[in-house]
């Protein structure tokens, strides 16, 4: 089929362009959530914020953040493997340098799943301490912002699964499969950067 023949790059990959444009609109979605957080913070006053943010476990969230950031690194290694059309590892499991896209993306998936697990644990412990979605205004904005982000991460995890199944089904690793891997990595980097901003706003700036 003509889709797998190599042609000189005469135009940017439209799938990648479309994904980038969509990500910039997703950024505006998170802009609305950030605006909601800052407005509520301004309206509610410092007292509520001080006592609410005191309940947050910043160290735990920092560990979770580190895992997510590192998952972006493993994702990028997967992209490098995809760009050289290497779907699977060419050596033993321990030789990281010989890993293919499949191994790197599987590792990224596990780290992303760890992040979600951490979020769920954090939500459970906060609800147990009395901070729930409807308990106070801070709860509302905290769960809305981090919750929507968590849903985005979960969507990204499903996307990684789809990429890996797609590569498996197609057997031959061509431009189409590499494109899919690349655009999923764009999404994952975006999700990671949004989390860094969210973490800074909620856990650091407070």
């Amino acid at each position: 089929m003509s889709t797998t023949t190599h042609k000189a790059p005469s135009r940017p990959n439209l799938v990648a362009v479309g994904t980038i444009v969509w990500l910039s609109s997703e950024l505006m979605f998170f802009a609305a959530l950030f605006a909601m957080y800052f407005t509520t913070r301004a309206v509610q006053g410092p007292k509520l914020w001080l006592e609410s943010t005191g309940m947050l476990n910043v160290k735990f969230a920092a560990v979770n953040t580190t895992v997510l950031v590192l998952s972006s690194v493993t994702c990028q290694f997967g992209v490098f493997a995809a760009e050289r059309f290497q779907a699977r590892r060419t050596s033993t499991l321990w030789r990281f340098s010989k890993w293919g896209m499949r191994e790197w993306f599987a590792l990224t998936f596990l780290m992303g799943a760890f992040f979600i697990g951490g979020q769920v644990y954090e939500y459970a412990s906060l609800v147990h301490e009395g901070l729930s979605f409807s308990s106070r205004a801070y709860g509302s904005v905290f769960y809305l912002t981090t919750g929507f982000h968590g849903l985005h991460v979960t969507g990204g995890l499903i996307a990684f699964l789809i990429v890996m199944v797609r590569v498996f089904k197609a057997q031959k690793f061509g431009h189409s499969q590499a494109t899919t891997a690349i655009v999923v990595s764009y999404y994952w980097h975006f999700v990671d950067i949004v989390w860094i901003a969210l973490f800074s706003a909620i856990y650091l700036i407070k």
Partner: protein
Amino acid sequence: MKASYRLFVGLSLFYAVMAVIYYLVGGEAVGITCISLSSGLAAIVGFYVWFNNNRLGLLPQDNVTAEIADGAGELGFYSPHSWWPLPVALSACAAGLGLLVGWWLTTIALGALFISVFGFALEYEKPSASAH
């Protein structure tokens, strides 16, 4: 592509400057956040176009002496028709409806959504002839 990236990077800088001015004239949280992130929106597209401009060079759309025929060729794969968007949309609707009706509906709908999304994404994946 140079025109494209200049446009978006220019917009990004404009929004950034506007965000600062808005903050200084006493703006409120929503405005400052949204104008700053609009700058981010333009920056994401602008950076991507700039990066690709360096990689691709002069494209037919930027070449003043180009002919229409220079832009000919395959644009990409576009699905001719598909039933899959329907189950995806119905599952998503059911998931939303479940917020009103009850969590049980949302749970079932999320399962259906998971299956529909996979069906949608993998519709055109056929094992290549070399696999047989």
